[in-house]
């Protein structure tokens, strides 16, 4: 029997998988936003139902910043840079979606072996979803061309880690949580600025073509 939180977590992981199969950058950002909103709503569920998770206002801050603010910012960046599609560098996009399904299955076995989540699927569902999100984010970063996709991949990974934190520990101490959030926001901002600069200097934001510094 899946609880509400686990169902939401699984849904977030599934949206992550869809994101990995998305060639259009803007759609990927939308899917990221949905996935983040789901992750953040889990924090709500924990704080409301179990009184063990982070406080409601923290969850609200997370939702506002990550599920609304960052997608808006990324959407603005994408519009300004006029990039649309990221066709993928090493794996065709549909295939990378199926690889992430395989990684989802792998996450299940990893999660079952993690202590405190023994046996049933329902117990391992939260951990499965979070590990799968980490994998999906990593895969997204590695198999995409655009700098902006790397940011999205990083954020997805961070979502997975946050979800794992929620699931395993019911939330880190508040001040740490806020610090992490601040760091992530700053990282996205700085990365956004650098993406603009890459576009200006290189006329593209294809990181697989940033090879000026490779060892001769």
């Amino acid at each position, binding site marked *: 029997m899946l609880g509400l939180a686990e169902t939401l977590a699984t849904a977030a992981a599934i949206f992550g998988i869809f994101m990995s199969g998305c060639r*259009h950058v*803007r*759609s990927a950002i939308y899917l990221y936003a949905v996935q983040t909103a789901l992750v953040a709503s889990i924090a709500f569920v924990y704080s409301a139902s179990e009184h063990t998770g982070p406080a409601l206002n923290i969850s609200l801050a997370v939702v506002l910043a990550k599920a609304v603010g960052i997608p808006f910012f990324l959407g603005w960046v994408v519009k300004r840079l006029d990039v*649309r*599609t990221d066709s993928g560098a090493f794996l065709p996009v549909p295939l990378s979606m199926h690889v992430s399904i395989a990684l989802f299955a792998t996450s299940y076995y990893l999660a079952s072996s993690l202590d405190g989540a023994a046996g049933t699927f329902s117990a391992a569902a939260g951990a499965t979803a979070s590990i799968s999100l980490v994998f999906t984010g990593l895969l997204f970063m590695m198999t995409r061309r655009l700098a902006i996709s790397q940011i999205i991949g990083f954020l997805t990974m961070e979502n997975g880690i946050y979800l794992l934190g929620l699931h395993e520990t019911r939330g880190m101490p508040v001040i740490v949580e806020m610090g992490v959030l601040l760091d992530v926001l700053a990282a996205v901002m700085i990365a956004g600025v650098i993406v603009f600069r890459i576009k200006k200097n290189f006329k593209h934001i294809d990181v697989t073509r940033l090879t000026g510094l490779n060892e001769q």
Partner: protein
Amino acid sequence: MKISLVPVPQAQLSDNLVDWLHVEDRRLGLISSLDGGQLVTLVLDCTDASAQCWLTPLDSDVYHSLTPSVPQAHWFERALNDLFGIRAAGHPRLKSVLQQSSCKGNLHPLRSIAQCGNPDHGHKSDNSYLHVSGEGVYEIPVGPVHAGIIEPGHFRLNCLGETIINLEIRLGFLHRGVERRLTEIPWRSARFVAEAASSDAAAACAIAHAIAVESMSDITVPERAQYLRTLALEVERVSMHINDLGGMSVDLGWSWLAANLSRLRGMTQEMAALLSGSRFLRNFICPGGVSVDPDARLGELKRMSEVVSKQLEVPINAFFDNSSVHDRTVKVGEISRSAARELGLVGVAARGSGIAYDARQHFAHGLYPALAPAMAVETAGDVLSRLKVRSAEIVGSLDLIRTALDNITSGTTSSELPNKLPGDTIGVGIVEAFRGELIHLIFTDKHGAIKRYCIKDPSFNNWTALAIAAGGNLVADFPVCNKSFSLSYSGVDL
């Protein structure tokens, strides 16, 4: 503008033309003949908006082809072969532009009667296709009767799997004898035939005709009439560009956008009706000015143009914002800048390939070049860049319509015409129609009657580009590619 004939001997024609086209801002207007006994070459110089007409007498039916050194001459030479029976020796592919069924035997419709005594005179026309052979290559015939309500034209696609290897275009199913007819009717009535040469560009055709006639007999057009002509031309441009974008949405399968754009197209036709009384701007522009003065309807026209600009924003933004549209149009139907220059492309196709040529910037018609809007040029040369040029021109034209309506002067709208045209003169009208540069070239005989009426529709230059652009694309993308050029079938079949 009024121009005079410059004799150019046959041996020098090719070299002269190459030298002329070597300069960036010079263009080839058209190549034709008066009665089959000579070549007439109209060349344009954009820097000082001048034109020259080279007359090359021919001593036989065969002359040395210009196409090997000037590729853009190829379609003109094919037309010469069909219409006059003048054969270009050494032409790489002298395929007929007319269908045999529409022209019995080897009748060459524009050859003078004297030279046309023998119906078998001239050369057998060649209507063959270029076949591609090899394993897995197959042919798809499309047309001449199409599923949609469009003009007749036959496309023969040689495909390998889902990729087009070669596209053969066969036009000329409905030869109407427009150019011939224009020499047979009284010159006062010629405008009705002239504006029907390509009816979706009626205003542009009528202006080109009017300018050609006016330049011959030095008629000055009242300023108000110039404003009204400009308005007509721009309303037509907006209307047809919106129509083309709408057609593109249909071909992309985007029904919401198509429905919106067809509604807006209706509004622009309403604007045309306000201006001229005709939704297709027929019978409005005449030599000497315009036939009716819209008077008070201009206020309504302005209000409507504002409504159209406002309502266009959403669909156009949605169109270019859509990622699937980008998928279907980016790197599809590409024409490189060099190819566009070699083929002498005009209009949207040229500007989409990075060639900054817009007749409004150089040649006087209506209030141009004084009022010409900034040129929209894209460099990618694919379907998307042509679409972008089109939408930028819609915006530019709507702005221009408002500017013209704000500044329009009062006064008469037409001036007196003489009884007859001066003898042995040449009149030329060059107009930027919505498809591109349109040329009407009129020669009179010594009595002042029209001896030869030559029309170069913009599609004349661009059809070959479609054939080239389609190659290497998916079969299913051909309609999109075709629509992006939006060419006229009847315009090349006069």
